[in-house]
């Protein structure tokens, strides 16, 4: 059966990157459509009327919204290649827990790092580093969060690596100095074609952040 897969996305979005990585890991051919978030397409509004956000995965005309739900869907439908979630229910629950932790903490704290200054930024940086250290602890000595191969948590988390340079420049700090093991993990992930092709260049993300700061009048 001819599968038709479309991804409505926005290049700098770490959430979009998750789905890109999952699709690449499974070797799925798909059509990538870049959205202009200030002028959302009729298709996006039709396919995600509730949130009107990217990414949206459209499989044979049917939309799947929310990046982690998409990654699980991709993993379940194309299950014979590169499994992302473990089959053991407890390990699966653990993977879901940490992906959810990334969702709850990383994006918001990272945003506060580049959007704020002074006292507020100092607090955000501290909390952000604490979060990264907890992830580092969870990684332990494993090459990936998924164990020997890239897994669900890796896919959920690695996109934020493309934003690290921007966070560091805006916050004037070094993530590698605080979390060397995490950076080693990130570089290991970047060796994989599925990841390298899905993440934008860190400088480009920084340029995007600078543009956002200008647009919103943030110094």
């Amino acid at each position, binding site marked *: 059966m001819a599968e038709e897969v479309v991804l409505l996305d926005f290049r700098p979005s770490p959430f979009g990157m998750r789905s890109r990585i999952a699709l690449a890991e499974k070797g799925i051919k798909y059509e990538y459509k870049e959205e202009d978030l200030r002028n959302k397409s009729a298709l996006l509004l039709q396919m995600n009327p509730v949130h009107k956000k990217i990414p949206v995965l459209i499989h044979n005309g049917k939309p*799947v919204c929310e990046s982690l739900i998409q990654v699980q*869907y991709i993993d379940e439908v194309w299950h014979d290649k590169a499994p992302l979630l473990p089959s053991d229910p407890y390990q699966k629950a653990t993977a879901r827990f940490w992906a959810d932790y990334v969702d709850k903490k990383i994006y918001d704290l990272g945003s506060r790092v580049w959007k704020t200054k002074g006292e507020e930024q100092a607090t955000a940086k501290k909390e952000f580093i604490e979060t990264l250290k907890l992830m580092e602890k969870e990684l332990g000595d494993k090459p990936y969060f998924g164990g020997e191969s890239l897994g669900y948590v890796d896919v959920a988390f690695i996109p934020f690596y493309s934003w690290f340079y921007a966070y560091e420049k805006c916050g004037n700090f070094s993530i590698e100095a605080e979390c060397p093991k995490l950076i080693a993990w990130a570089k290991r992930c970047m060796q994989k074609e599925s990841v390298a092709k899905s993440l934008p260049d860190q400088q480009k993300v920084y340029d995007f952040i600078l543009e956002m700061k200008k647009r919103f009048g943030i110094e």
Partner: protein
Amino acid sequence: MAESNVMLLGTWASPFVLRVKIALRLKSVNYEYHEENLPESKSDLLLKSNPVYKKVPVLIHGHNPICESLIIVEYIDEVWTTSASSILPSDAYERAQSRFWAAYVEDKFSTALRRVLFGTTEEDKRAAMAEVSEGILLLEEAFVKLSKGRAFFGGENIGFVDIVFGSLLAWIEVIEKLSEMKLISEAKTPRLVQWADFFSAHEAVKDVSPAVDKLVEFALKLGARVLKATAPTN
């Protein structure tokens, strides 16, 4: 069916804990329940089992702690498998739809409910109430789509969205009582009115749901204040 050491750490008023109770009852799993005295004190077991958030519910299965109510419910569904009572649908696309609506209830809807009760400013409470009303209309639409004419979001049987949304019904009633306004009304959301009745009466739900008047008392003690209805009619 393998009997296991199953323990649930919870608090009686928590809708998140209620989700787990319902799921365990649906699967006929025997479990030991431990009431935590939050926020005054957290048991050593809770701190050890959920060091990241220190919150309930926590399901402890054997030696393994599982945290976060949605994750726990999926875990329960995957461990205790009898096709008669499957919580998530078997079709991958339908599963994605269920997870989407469960996430919507969890991320957007329940935070709005909390702000209606505990929001710091009148403006915030008003905005939250509008979000709740909007959310219920969306959920009515979702119900029509997902239920396909049957009694529950899950179809013939209670499913994931039923559990995640249904666990909030008692708290919705608390808000209705305090605001003197119907949130789930015959006029605007007739399918949800019927669904709420079916859900509340279900075997797996009725004996574990907290009493609404006790919740009202509890909410007021916590400092809840709900704006009375001034909005245009239901």
